[in-house]
């Protein structure tokens, strides 16, 4: 589908809500992941890995800003989105908000890998978006994400090669895999956090309006069919290994596989409150009412 929708004026109410929800999925994931990545600055195992992760964090912040900028067309302002939203108004997956255990590089690397495979699949599904601004931004984000994915897979492969690394990676898989599955959970609409009845409708509209051309189930299948064999080859077992038979990656993700909080519906883990408290602290302390911008419009 070619991009035919230029502005919110081309959308009905339902579509506007779907667009808003989609953009929050995208922007919030990138923003919160970047916040977590920056915790590694000056603490990564080597100077080189430090710089590489800081580079990725900076990229992700830039991408979050690109998505938040599209949200501004719907009447939001950046400072409201980043500094003034209540905790349950955020729609990121719980994968990106989980804290790192002190010095656990395997956690950082695995999370990075699980996320960036999903990101790659998601960008594929957005490339032909009917909403012009979304389609337009995918290209730029893509070129940077390719590096992220390569960086992450390289690290996972190397860590899996040693005994201690493999053990730490397996721990990280056990801990993070359920959270990673929330990447593909439906979002509660912006206005109805916790109201599960609207979730499926919003996701349906995201696809039927052509904002994204794959369903969550399709993207999850694509993600599982990449991630599970990759980790399996490295001797890492996922909770999905039991569910996959004869390379069939389409299966129901039941509630007992998912964590209690899934993020997308506005429910989050305790770690999220702490993180949000921290990155909004200065804004509140200084009684700011706008976000600092170096560039007028993100590019």
């Amino acid at each position, binding site marked *: 589908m070619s991009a035919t929708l230029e502005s919110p004026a081309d959308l009905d109410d339902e579509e506007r809500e779907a667009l808003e929800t989609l953009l929050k999925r995208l922007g919030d994931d990138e923003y919160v992941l970047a916040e977590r990545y920056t915790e590694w600055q000056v603490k990564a195992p*080597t*100077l*080189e*890995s430090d*710089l*590489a992760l800081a*580079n990725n964090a900076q990229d992700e912040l830039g991408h979050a800003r690109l998505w938040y900028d599209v949200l501004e067309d719907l009447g939001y302002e950046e400072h409201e989105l980043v500094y003034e939203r209540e905790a349950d108004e955020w729609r990121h997956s719980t994968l990106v908000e989980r804290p790192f255990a002190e010095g656990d590089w395997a956690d950082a690397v695995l999370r990075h890998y699980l996320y960036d495979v999903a990101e790659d699949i998601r960008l594929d599904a957005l490339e032909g978006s009917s909403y012009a601004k979304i389609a337009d931004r995918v290209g730029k984000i893509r070129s940077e994400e390719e*590096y992220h994915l*390569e*960086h992450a897979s*390289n690290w996972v492969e*190397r860590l899996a090669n040693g005994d201690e690394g493999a053990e730490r990676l397996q721990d990280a898989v056990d801990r993070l895999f359920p959270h990673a599955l929330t990447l593909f959970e439906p979002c509660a609409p912006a206005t109805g956090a916790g109201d599960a009845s609207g979730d499926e409708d919003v996701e349906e509209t995201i696809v039927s309006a052509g904002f994204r051309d794959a369903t969550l189930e399709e993207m999850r299948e694509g993600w599982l069919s990449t991630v599970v064999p990759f980790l399996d080859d490295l001797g890492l077992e996922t909770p999905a290994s039991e569910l996959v038979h004869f390379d069939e990656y389409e299966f129901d993700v039941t509630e007992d596989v998912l964590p209690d909080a899934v993020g997308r519906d506005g429910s989050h883990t305790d770690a999220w409150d702490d993180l949000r408290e921290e990155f909004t602290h200065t804004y509140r302390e200084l009684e700011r009412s706008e976000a600092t911008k170096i560039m007028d419009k993100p590019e």
Partner: protein
Amino acid sequence: MIWEVFRQEKQGDYHTHCGNVHAPDREMAKQFAAIQHGRRKPTNSLWVVPKEEVGETDADDVAFGGTTDKAYRWATAYNPDVDHAEEVVESEGQQAEAEKQRGDA
């Protein structure tokens, strides 16, 4: 392991040494080099070379040139003031530069 990094700005340019990175293997070295040496300046290509693979010979080992008067190399018999004498002009430039570095001029 240390990898020396060489950066080429545009196609056809020389790769110029620009620093080094620590990396366990070539693949990671290329990735780290891209961030540290290819992110801020326009870059067409990077080489990464294991430090121990670089052969070095220095002034203690060899008497390098460029230290004596090579006035006989000046193109005195040619008229460089024409279009097709580019190479002559360039060669003269190199000689002039060598003299300057030697402290003769």
